[in-house]
């Protein structure tokens, strides 16, 4: 029997599977993937806010002059911009975290799993109350 001249690598008993490769930019290919990566990157802005808090703490440790200087630095337009971007991502984290919590915790009452929104809703309520309490504590005086 005549064999065709240009035979690609062919295994006799085994079909040659095509194995697609995943691009490094896979997360750009689909809106849901991009949203996921942005959700994960929100942690970078959480870390940035922690760094800001640590610097603020250092300024307080160093004394009134350093504290005033740090306040001044936080008011620079570039820093304000970073804070604004951070706020977007930090809120993104809070909202996605609260909304995904009920998926990870199947809360049951009297043998029945209660609806997801009922697990998520108290989080928002507590969030508002806690934020208000912290603001009052810092602002008073």
């Amino acid at each position, binding site marked *: 029997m005549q064999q065709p001249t240009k035979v690609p690598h062919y295994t006799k008993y085994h079909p040659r599977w*095509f194995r697609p490769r*995943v691009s490094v930019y896979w997360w750009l290919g689909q809106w849901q993937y991009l949203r996921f990566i942005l959700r994960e990157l929100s942690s970078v802005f959480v870390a940035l806010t922690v760094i800001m808090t640590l610097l603020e703490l250092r300024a307080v440790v160093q004394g009134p002059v350093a504290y005033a200087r740090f306040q001044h630095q936080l008011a620079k337009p570039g820093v304000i911009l970073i804070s604004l971007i951070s706020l977007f991502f930090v809120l993104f984290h809070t909202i996605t975290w609260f909304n995904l919590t009920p998926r990870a915790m199947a809360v049951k009452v009297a043998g029945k799993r209660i609806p997801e929104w009922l697990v998520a809703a108290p989080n928002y309520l507590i969030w508002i109350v806690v934020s208000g309490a912290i603001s009052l504590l810092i602002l008073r005086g």
Partner: protein
Amino acid sequence: MGESIVLEIARYSPERDAEPHLETYEVPLRKEWVVLDALNHIKDKIDGSLTYRWSCRMGICGSCGVMVNGEPKLGCATFLSSYAGRKRVRVEPLRYFPIVRDLVTELGDFLAKLKKVKPWLIRTDGPLLREGEYLQTPEQLDDYRQLSMCINCTLCYSACPVVGLDALFVGPAAIALAQRYNKDSRDRGAKERTLILAHPDGIWGCTFVGECTRVCPQHVDPAGAIQQYKVGSALAWFEGLIMPKKRRKTEDRHGAAAD
């Protein structure tokens, strides 16, 4: 003849092609036609060499999964009319799987992973089968019923980027099915499954993208099942830390360390 719609279908012949390419086919746009009807039409009337899997054409066998415009879908449950406004509908084999031919994916790796999590009732103690059935309350049934709806269509694997990135990742359906048996009151196999599940290639590989749940045609929630297992594992780890004696017992159910 009425309206028609153009399908771009990925073709791959292991004998001829180095990689898949798209070919276009024009098919009638009938109101009641699904993607699978279009594929059958092409195979009957246009090109008999088109290769794809299908069986029940009613969303229960799980064999006709394909990517439709980049989304994992069951061919038999995706109406052409919902793409009527588009110029073209692109049909490709399910993502992240090796391609055998045209739209046929290689399932060996998936089936091996599925088997590894022992998705069956494990029970060595208790009454023998001939002494009657194991009784279960409706609440106990509710614990796992939704997870038992899985039809092994592998759409969730095509939705999950971790499956594509990490060849060893056990994957959504297999973990969800493991949980289906872990949550079954008749089952005693949770400890055996721990070795596979509480492992970097098991639940810890999952980053909760959540796409598996979104594309599931059976409304199973693999992402939720995996996160719940993570919570259980973390709690079991802490319990083991505080009360080492109790460790073995809680690990039986959730499994903390994979050491």
